[in-house]
């Protein structure tokens, strides 16, 4: 590892205690939900009180999403929605049956699920999206490599990885310098590669798009990779459906045109990504607590 990489390889981020997931898992085994859910709500209030930075970022985001100053109880609901998603991940990791289904309007993605091709799958930290790679891999047997930020408490993901080990593998990132080369190897190995495309950390290429009332910076690396490797792109988010179900929303398939220039391909990719952002914004306007980025909202840039 180079000096720069060593310097960049920060210790894994860990917003909660490392034993947190194991504790929740144990409680889930012994406590009835009628007791455990209020206990989780109390725990969330404690987290809210002890996480001033995340609380501030939640409030800043909700102010934009709601168009007004959020009340403290709304910040709590935002935190609790995230906690419930983590709880769901733990439960699925522990074997609770959970099914992914596709929204009615994503014919291209339905075809992809029926007959997978090697693609780049982009998603956001929104609602159940963390589960979509597992559900896709588990349901179809298609091999998916997932880019994940190594956290201090990755117990939930480790367990999910064990459960879906035959079809899902991880590229753990805490060294941004080699991310692109890890991606290159994963793409060359075949199967699909899934990555989060909403946070700017480790993003090699960013561009401004319309989102939540402003032009905001988003990672655009996935489309550059698609052009370089000639792979199609699907952007997806997964949201709660009926109990025990997650509904996956997906964009139409976008693929670079080998006969077109890089600029022409990236121009059409921009339209594709903007369409995805409009879809995500529609979901968030209806369900603002599904945005699971407790970091500064993607920064605005001048139009």
């Amino acid at each position, binding site marked *: 590892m*180079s000096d720069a990489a060593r310097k960049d390889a920060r210790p894994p981020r860990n917003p909660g205690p490392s034993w947190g997931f194991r504790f929740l898992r144990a409680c889930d085994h012994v406590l009835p939900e009628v007791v455990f859910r209020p206990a989780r709500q109390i725990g969330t209030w404690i987290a809210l009180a002890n996480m001033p930075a995340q609380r501030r970022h939640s409030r800043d985001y909700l102010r934009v999403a709601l168009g007004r100053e959020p009340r403290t109880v709304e910040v709590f609901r935002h935190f609790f929605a995230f906690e419930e998603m983590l709880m769901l991940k733990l439960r699925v990791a522990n074997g609770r049956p959970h099914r992914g289904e596709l929204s009615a309007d994503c014919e291209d993605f339905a075809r992809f699920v029926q007959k997978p091709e090697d693609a780049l799958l982009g998603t956001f930290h929104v609602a159940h999206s963390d589960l979509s790679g597992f559900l896709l891999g588990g349901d179809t047997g298609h091999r998916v490599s997932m880019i994940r930020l190594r956290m201090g408490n990755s117990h939930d993901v480790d367990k999910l990885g064990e459960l879906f080990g035959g079809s899902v593998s991880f590229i753990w990132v805490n060294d941004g310098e*080699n991310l*692109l*080369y890890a991606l290159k190897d994963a793409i060359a190995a075949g199967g699909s590669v899934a990555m989060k495309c909403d946070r700017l950390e480790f993003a*090699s*290429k960013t561009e401004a798009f319309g989102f939540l009332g402003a032009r905001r910076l988003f990672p655009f690396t996935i489309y*550059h990779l698609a052009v370089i490797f000639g792979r199609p792109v699907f952007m997806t988010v997964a949201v709660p459906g009926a109990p025990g179900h997650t509904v996956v929303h997906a964009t139409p398939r976008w693929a670079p045109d080998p006969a077109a220039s890089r*600029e022409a391909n990236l121009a059409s990719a921009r339209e594709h990504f903007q369409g995805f952002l409009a879809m995500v914004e529609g979901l968030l306007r209806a369900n603002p607590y599904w945005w699971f980025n407790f970091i500064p909202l993607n920064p605005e840039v001048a139009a």
Partner: protein
Amino acid sequence: MPDPLNARLKTLMIDTLKLEDVTPDDIRDDEPLIGGGLSLDSIDALELVVKLEKEFGLKIGSSEESRSALASVDALSAYLRAHADPARLPSA
């Protein structure tokens, strides 16, 4: 007389990265490729690496290796002479 491998690499870079208004003569043999006058970034470097792997039958496995190989055209030539399939290199 210019090194034939250097000349080929300059043409390959211009074609692969679609560097507009750049000719092989504009690229100095000792000029840094990343962060230098060509303004190549990490994605450009990756694209170039993918092309080099295909063209010369080698594998560049890390960012560190890529940075060292892409330090300049001279450095890239030296790297290819040490690692590439000799049959794919232009004869001097």
